[in-house]
């Protein structure tokens, strides 16, 4: 493999890492609070609000039902408004983040649902504020499930990022399509796929390791 191709591979790897890391970080930053809101506004919970809960649920489901390739192009005006351009790696981060947020919100809600209600009652009986319950009980106890879900999100984003080529976002998936598929360059196709496999394996292993560190329920 020539040095030029090797350069292409490394720069594409960086593009993928950049897109996934930034959109994953932003997705978690915005998705986790949304998930907490989804959990706490459910009727019978501490911030119960039937209409807000329903509304959030509908918006999240709607966003999640749009195929990513359509989301990518459908929100181009929004992307341009946020980052000033609709083409390029940075532009791809906007739809990736938007795809990640509802995903993370549902994962967070699910992980919080797994926390036994008795723990929340115990905290209430200790005189904990709602915010303390969220921080010290709910999020702490849901941490293993949350990390597991965020790992899943990062891997999904790696997959989504392959479509970023549609708006000139670059990355490994784009490289595979342009060189491996359109130019019949098998070595390039195989290289990108192998790198992606290794990347996913690394992310999963890191996630599993973190889950083991936080999970004290199995001994």
């Amino acid at each position, binding site marked *: 493999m020539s040095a030029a191709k090797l350069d292409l591979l490394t720069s594409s790897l960086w593009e993928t890492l950049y897109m996934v890391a930034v959109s994953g970080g932003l997705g978690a930053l915005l998705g986790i609070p949304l998930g907490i809101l989804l959990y706490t506004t459910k009727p019978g919970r501490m911030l119960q609000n039937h209409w807000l809960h329903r509304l959030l649920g509908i918006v999240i489901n709607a966003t999640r039902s749009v195929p990513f390739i359509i989301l990518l192009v459908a929100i181009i005006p929004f992307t341009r408004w946020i980052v000033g351009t609709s083409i390029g790696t940075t532009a791809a981060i906007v739809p990736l983040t938007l795809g990640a947020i509802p995903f993370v919100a549902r994962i967070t809600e699910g992980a919080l649902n797994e926390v036994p209600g*008795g723990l929340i009652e115990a905290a209430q009986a*200790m*005189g*904990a*504020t709602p915010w*303390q319950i969220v921080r010290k009980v709910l999020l702490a*106890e849901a941490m293993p499930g949350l990390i597991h879900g965020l790992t899943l999100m990062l891997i999904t984003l790696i997959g989504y990022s392959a479509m970023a080529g549609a708006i000139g976002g670059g990355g490994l998936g784009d490289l595979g399509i342009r060189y491996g598929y359109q130019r019949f360059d098998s070595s390039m196709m195989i290289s990108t796929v192998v790198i992606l496999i290794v990347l996913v394996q690394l992310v999963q292993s890191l996630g599993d390791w973190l889950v083991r560190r936080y999970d*004290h329920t199995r*001994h």
Partner: protein
Amino acid sequence: MISLKHLVKTYHGHGAPVHAVCDVSLDVAEGRIYGVIGASGAGKSTLIRCVNLLERPDAGEVWVNGRDLLTLTDAELRQARRQIGMIFQHFNLLSTRSVFDNVALPLELAGLSRSDIVARVQPLLALTGLEARANHYPAQLSGGQKQRVAIARALASEPKVLLCDEATSALDPETTRSILALLRDINEKLGLTILLITHEMDVIKTLCDEVALMEDGAVVERGPVQAFFARPQSATAKRFVQAALERPLPETILSRLQSAPAAGLDPLVRITYVGGQVDAPVLSHLSREFGVDVNILSSQIELIQHQPLGFMVAQVEAQDQPAAETALAWLQQQELQVEVLGYVSR
């Protein structure tokens, strides 16, 4: 210390409303251990959860430590709750926190510094016998150890009152005894007022000073534990006491038991005696004076609140029916509780 006044709590779910607590009043004096017993569904769990307002009653007053909790703001209620410790049937420990950090949680919530927390938690771990387990996680502990952690956690904020919601119901008998001993110990050492609910009469017998019996959301009987066991009034109380203390009569006798006296049948009596009466030789006196044979079928003595309480079932064998009646009449004049269970043939 705790005073519940005319509490009412009704659940409106699907179907008919459930009257979990109907007009229950209850007073627990400072430093006492008060037990509420009842079958499942009697409303005792709802009642204890009303004391720290985990459950808000529909009507009534909840006085703890001189304040009516129902009149407090959210912030004031949180402060008041720090003076009310609570332990649960399923312990409710945080699985991601070590024993030390579980006990430290209420102190963290109250905003204490790390050094203050360490100074408070260490003696609690010593009190509950958990020093060697400080860095273990709940999943590594037995049920009894988990409840000890929960007790230490409940005591961390130095409460005046401890609520125990079926605290020993998930534990085996031996572990139950050790937890009850620990509760007795902290009651004496710290002067803590304890309100507990249970469906186990053993808990009432070994730990409580006073007891209330709940049925269908209402208190049907209450009083000092001694009197409750020695002289239960209501049918439910009698059933509970009998089930808890007396071994049932063998089927061979029960099947022969007749309800009316007749020739050739002897009365079968149950005698309950308290305290000093245990020592009085009533039966040998009966036998000597009235010329009857007393065939003791079962007999046992229980210690309740350090006072002996005895139960005996005996067949009184007299020459004829009038002789048996005279003997029984004398027996009933003694300071004993005598109940004729029925009549059996020899």
